Structures are given as structure tokens and as C-alpha cells.
């Protein structure tokens, strides 16, 4: 009885997948062993049968219906694929086309101007900040005035301010140091 490995070799021989020396060995086997020859015949018949009788299957829906399904999907994909690159491409076209050059340039300048004006038109912030210190006796406040390009720091005696309520009356003349 021939082995599975030998059967697979016979099949490979049938399919033209063996080297010349291996093919010779299989030919010798088939010449000397009836079962090997029968395996070859069986595989060959099955292969011939399949190769010459491929089933022909027709699509069950009409040409128009099938194409509509494909067309709709393609169209949907194309609509979705409008990307940043398309915008860049359009912009490039607008810039390279002299007819559009002046209005496009004017629009860009206007947009940049709006951006810059918006940035400079921000309200100037003057603010008072209390600064924490580790000292139990001395406290401090800072005050920044953007328009005057000024930065002021008050250092005061905590004991004195506690007595006088610092919330309402922040600074005493004798505590004030300008830095």
C-alpha cells in the first residue's frame, strides 16, 4: 500500500509541480505499483472533469439594477472623499489663475488684518494679585498696569493690616515700597 506522501507526490506529478528527478521517481513507482497508477488515474479524471466543466453561474439581477448599486456607492465614496487636499488644489488653481489673483489676494490680506486687529484689540488687563509669603509678619501684593508698562509690589506689616481690615483699606503709606 502506498503512503499519503507518495499519493501527494503522484498528485504533484500530475500537476507538473515536480522536478525532473522527482518526476522520474514517480513514473517508476507508477510503472511498478498498480495502486499508484490507479491513484494517478483517479486524480487525473477528477482534474479533467473539473477543468472542462466549470459551472457557469449567471447573476440573478439585471445589468441596470446591479450597475445602479455600484454607481451609488462610487458616487457616495467620491462625495465623502472631498478632503483638505482638494481645498488646497482649488486654492492653488485660484492663485495661479491671474483672473482670480487680485480678489484672492485681497481676501487673504483682509483675513490677516482682521486676525491682527482682533489680537491687538484685546482689552488691556490691569490686575491686582496677592502673593503668598511664608513670613507671618510681612505680606505682599503686586499690581500690574499694562498700558503704563508698570509693575508695583506692596509689602506690608500683617499685624497692622489685621487690625485695620486689609480688604477695605489695603495699603498704608508707611508700608509702601516701590520696586
Amino acid at each position, binding site marked *: 500500500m502506498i503512503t*499519503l506522501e507518495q*499519493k*501527494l507526490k503522484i*498528485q*504533484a506529478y500530475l*500537476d507538473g*509541480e515536480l522536478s525532473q528527478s522527482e518526476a522520474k521517481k514517480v513514473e517508476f513507482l507508477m510503472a511498478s505499483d498498480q*495502486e499508484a497508477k*490507479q*491513484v494517478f*488515474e*483517479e*486524480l487525473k*479524471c*477528477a*482534474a*479533467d*472533469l*473539473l*477543468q*472542462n*466543466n*466549470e*459551472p*457557469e*453561474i*449567471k*447573476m*440573478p*439581477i439585471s*445589468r441596470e439594477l*446591479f*450597475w445602479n*448599486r*455600484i*454607481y451609488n*456607492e*462610487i458616487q457616495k*465614496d467620491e462625495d465623502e472623499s472631498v478632503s483638505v487636499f482638494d481645498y488646497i488644489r482649488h486654492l492653488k488653481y485660484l492663485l495661479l489663475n491671474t483672473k482670480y489673483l487680485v480678489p484672492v489676494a485681497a481676501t487673504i490680506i483682509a483675513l490677516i488684518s482682521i486676525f491682527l486687529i482682533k489680537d491687538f484689540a484685546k482689552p488691556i488687563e490691569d490686575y491686582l494679585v496677592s502673593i503668598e509669603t511664608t513670613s507671618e509678619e510681612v505680606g505682599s501684593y503686586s499690581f500690574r498696569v499694562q498700558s503704563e508698562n508698570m509693575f508695583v509690589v506692596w509689602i506690608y506689616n500683617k499685624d497692622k493690616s489685621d487690625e485695620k481690615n486689609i480688604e477695605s483699606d489695603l495699603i498704608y503709606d508707611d508700608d509702601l515700597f516701590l520696586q
Partner: protein
Amino acid sequence: MDVQNKYASLDDEALVRSAQKGNKNAFEELVARHRDKVYGRLMIMIKNENDALDLSQEVWIKAWKRLKQFHGDAAFCTWITRIAINVGVDHIRKQKRKKYESIEDHIEESGSIERLMPIEIVNPAQGLEREELRARIDKALEQLSPEHRSVVILHEFEGLEYKEIAKMLKCSMGTIMSRLFYARKKLAHLLAGLKKERLQ
């Protein structure tokens, strides 16, 4: 001359060139010409009409997107069929059920039962009409697992070599040889059975 007739007179090469430039009418003609082939391949592979129809659509949409990659090295029909087979193989992989990964799969993969079957030499010329024979082959193919059917399709219908099939299905050449042997053996047995039924 209406649009369909205009494109019907062009060969595949001309239609591909036109479609590559974005002409959807040319692409429609290519679809009309080769849709049965694509559908047939998928239908033989997966044996489900609705899935085969949906996957056919997927194949053509992929083809449209990749059309610029087609340089005419092979015939358009071969190119589109390869896409169909890849889509079919992916589908089979996704659909592979757990039961196939366990004992049943092992039995089928090794083909242990079929290998023990007696040798059946089927004579295709004996008595059957061509259409009837094709229908019987189709029925016999249906009884193979999707993995074994894929190997048969790629080898017998597409004429691919073991190495190419192994690459496409991402498995070893030994597995391909084993699957093909098992599939042929089972088909020979099934077809011989059908012939005997007919003779009785």
C-alpha cells in the same frame, strides 16, 4: 447610437483606458461584460446568493478605486477575477466558525475519511449532458468546505500553481497539496456516486 451601444463596440483595453480617466460609462460596460464571471466565482466559493451579490458589488467598487493600478500586464478579466477571489477568501476567513477550528476542521483538513475511500475513476464522457454534468459538479463542490473549494477553484479553474495558491490563502504548500488531494478524492467519489444513481 446610444451610450450602451457605443461602449459595447469597444474592447476591454479601450474601455479600461477610458474608465481610468474617470469615464463611468466605460466602466459600466466592463461591469456588464464581466459581472457574471465575478459573481460565479464568488458564488462557487461561498455558496450564498446574497453574500455573493454583495461581495460582487464590493469587488467592482474596489476595481474602480484601483483601476489606475491596472497596467494591462494580464487581461482585465484575470485582474478582476483575482480581486474577486481575494474578496471571497477574506470573506471565508471572516466567516470561519469555531466549529471549523476544532475537531471537524481537523478531520476535514486531514481528509482522513476520504483518503480511505476506494479509488473512483469517473468517466466524464459517459452519458451525461454537459449542462447536467456542470450542475452535478456544482452540487459536488457545494459539499466541500469553503477552504477546500477555494483551492479547487484556484487550481482547476484559475490554473494557479501550488506556490501561488499558498501565498494567496496564506498557508503552507503542504496544506494546499493536502486540501487539493482531499477535494479531488471527495469530488471523484461524489460524482461516481451520482453516476451510479443514474445507471440504476
